[in-house]
């Protein structure tokens, strides 16, 4: 079974090296870094680690980067694709548990949820997360405990059917719309939430909590299109 790990990265030179090492140490050979118009050493570091890098010549946002990664997975005939943040907030060791519902054929898409177990996320983030979970449920009819998680896995069926249209952070919720639209089977596994000052600052494109409000607003606007 061919497994691809997609690492979307925008100016992640501080962490990308360690993230790729962690993936390699856990036996993941097929990795693609989507360098989303970084102005720093992100792409060079990834190439030096011997990993293929797809470069967006201009920054197009998280959704666009994930879309390119999924397209790469489809074009190269992968059976499973995993999305993995480049800021060091995920552990490669969790991927085996993440993809096991795909391998056993129970699910088409799995996310790693930081909220199944209580009390690991900073309080403000937890509240924002619940609000976006509720919004995701109201808009798309899928209940999840962590709609904004960056750790996701897709089987071949999900890879073929999922069609991502949003370019920016709203993409996290868009995956759930695609789950509903295509009748995909969805499940979650608990993962530890590693929140450092670094990942907190990076996670929302440097705008902090205000950005979450912008994302919610865009999700609402999208209904009227």
């Amino acid at each position, binding site marked *: 079974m061919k497994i691809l790990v997609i690492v979307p990265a925008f100016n992640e030179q501080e962490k990308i090296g360690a993230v790729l090492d962690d993936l390699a140490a856990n036996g993941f050979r097929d990795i693609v870094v989507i360098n989303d118009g970084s102005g720093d050493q992100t792409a060079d570091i990834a190439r030096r680690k011997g990993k293929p890098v797809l*470069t*967006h010549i201009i920054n197009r946002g998280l959704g666009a980067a994930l879309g390119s990664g999924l397209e790469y997975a489809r074009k190269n005939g992968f059976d499973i694709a995993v999305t993995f943040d480049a800021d060091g907030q995920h552990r490669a060791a969790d991927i085996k548990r993440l993809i096991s519902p795909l391998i056993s054929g129970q699910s088409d898409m799995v996310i790693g949820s930081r909220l199944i177990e209580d009390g690991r996320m900073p309080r403000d983030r937890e509240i924002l997360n619940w609000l976006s979970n509720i919004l995701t449920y109201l808009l798309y009819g899928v209940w999840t405990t962590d709609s904004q998680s960056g750790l996701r896995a897709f089987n071949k069926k999900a890879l073929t059917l999922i069609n991502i249209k949003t370019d920016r952070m709203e993409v996290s919720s868009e995956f759930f719309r695609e789950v509903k639209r295509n009748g995909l089977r969805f499940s979650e596994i608990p993962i530890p939430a590693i929140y450092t000052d670094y990942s907190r600052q990076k996670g929302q494109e440097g705008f902090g909590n205000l950005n979450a409000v912008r994302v919610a607003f865009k999700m609402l606007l999208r209904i009227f299109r």
Partner: protein
Amino acid sequence: MSSIIIIQLILLLFLLFALSRVFLRFRGGQIKYKEFIFWSVVFVSAIFGVLFPGETTRLARLFGIGRGADLVIYVSIIVLFYLIFRAYVLMENLSHQITELVRKIALENGNKANKPK
């Protein structure tokens, strides 16, 4: 029409200028037939309204609005909102097309650069 007041003159000159641009853009092929009709109707009716303000008031009364100027403002706001909405959708589509383009370039360059040697 007894006497043309200054504001009428200014508006008239501007509207004639706008109308001439619409005509030139259409002749130059930058706007489509439907857009030509739409903008021509907009500016011709505006010229009409400027020349015969009394007529707009009579039209306004038909809709139960007291003054012609009020009717013009109401209609303008509705049209503006609609145009902004259209522009928003257009911009989103453009943005999506740019992403598609950037993605295609990334995948093509990636294929070349990442081929096993």
